[in-house]
């Protein structure tokens, strides 16, 4: 795990990492990856991945509206809002 790989991950995860810390972060993540690489020794041929401990199916709800408008309460804790909108630095591309 080198510095450029760490920066690539940091970009995907949107986390700023100071250049002075990159090598330390890389070293620690390499420690973790060394641990998890023990998995490679396991024989998992024909084993279905288990994404969830519950071996059951999803319950679905009926199509009803019962959420009230609570904009005031929600925006009271927003870092920046105006006219009911959340404000962020200018978004350049749509989509």
């Amino acid at each position, binding site marked *: 795990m080198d510095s450029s790989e760490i920066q690539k991950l940091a970009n*995907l995860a*949107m986390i700023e990492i100071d250049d002075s810390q990159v090598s330390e972060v890389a070293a620690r993540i390499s420690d973790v990856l060394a641990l998890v690489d023990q998995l490679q020794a396991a024989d998992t041929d024909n084993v279905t991945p288990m*994404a*969830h401990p*519950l071996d*059951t*199916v*999803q319950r*679905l*709800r*009926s*199509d*009803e*509206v*019962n*959420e009230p*408008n*609570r*904009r005031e309460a*929600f*925006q009271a804790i927003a870092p*920046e809002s*105006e*006219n*009911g*909108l*959340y*404000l*962020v*630095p*200018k*978004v350049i*591309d*749509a*989509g």
Partner: protein
Amino acid sequence: MTWETVIGLEVHVQLATKSKLFSATSTAFGSEPNTQASAIDLAMPGTLPVANEEPFRYAIMFGLAIGAEIGKESVFERKNYFYPDLPKGYQTTQLAKPIVGAGEVEITLEDGSTKSIRIHHAHLEEDAGKSMHEDFHGMSGIDLNRAGTPLIEIVSEPDLRSAEEAVAFAKKLHSLVTSLGICDGEMSQGSMRFDVNISVHKPGTPFGTRTETKNLNSFKFMEEAIEMEVDRQIEELESGGVIDQETRLYDGDKRTAKTMRKKADENDYRYFPCPDLLPVVFDDAYVDAIKAAMPELPEARAARFKEEYQLSDYDADILSADAATSAYFEQLVKTSNDAKQSANWIMGELSAKLNAEEKSIKDSPVTAEQLGGVISRTQDGTISSKIAKQVFEALWDGKGTSADEIIESQGLKQVSDTGALEKMADEVIANSAKQVENYRNADPDKRPKMLGYFVGQIMKASKGQANPQAINKILIEKLNALL
């Protein structure tokens, strides 16, 4: 050899459910910003998705309509990327196990030929919010009312070969989803949005590198964007260039397109099964029950219109294409008892007026019952077809609640009373000595044409209410008596 265009579509269809895909929040369009954004929609910490059954029913209806395999077990996954209109930082969508598998849609082209377009799959996912780019001190405003609205994304195979085919396909999907009643079809509100994958190649050679033009929300823009992109690619290739795989944006108002991002900058979405949701499973009985209750699809409806109302192929296709138009038409026939006139009115006066005011037929100010009244009064001779248009306009402007009321209050009733008409004819003849003289001296062949002047005068005197056939008859008798 000429270039061949290859097009595939990804179509986002907003499902017309009352509540969102994972929250019990309203999906109604046009509310004040963030008044339809619950704690779940805002991705408040600790909140969890609770899946709505209705979008699955709708997706299954679509799947059945295109003859697709229904995913008996479908799985939601998280598609990870950061964007301010995506509150959780991931979109909950389906990838490996979608609700609708491969199917087919038949399109009809202008020349009457048909073509089958393969659907790769259709999956359920949640819509994002909206970014408002008006200036808030150099910032953008985020409205999350739309966030979490259920969508099906329909992904076609690259089977389309021209803008015309692509538009026909898009219109066919619009017709299908509105007929199924699973989407309101309101393009201007973003209820259907198209991403278009375009490449060109020489027939017999592998497909060229494709670009994707995103988020087109009208058939017209889609057609323009495709034509513009095809021209750009051909020009580029013919001048020795190469096509970069990229995502493009088309600005329909300015009629310009530009690169949004290059393939190399594409996000790595890191899909994985959403651990907050379990697999959604349906048995055969569930799907069979939906199948048994399917509404009439456009083809069946067109055939029925031809049979039941003796419409031409052309009229039947147009009137059956979307559910709202079909419903309006059938209601209109019921009140007017005249299928041909009903078809003419819808495709003529009504659609011209709706287009001019950018309204959909569902929101037409003139109801089918009201328009039916107009047609009936024309049929029974109460008003002329010219006055009928006047009555329609008055209904449109809300000047009355029925054709009869407007005819009455504005005194538009056609005068067919012979006594009154004879009196008017006598007056006009008496006041038009010169024209009468000319008529008398004219060649008999030319006389019918000259009748027009006298008819016009009587119509003027009667404020258009005189019955033209009756006037003609009376005038000919009276003028010929003077010969």
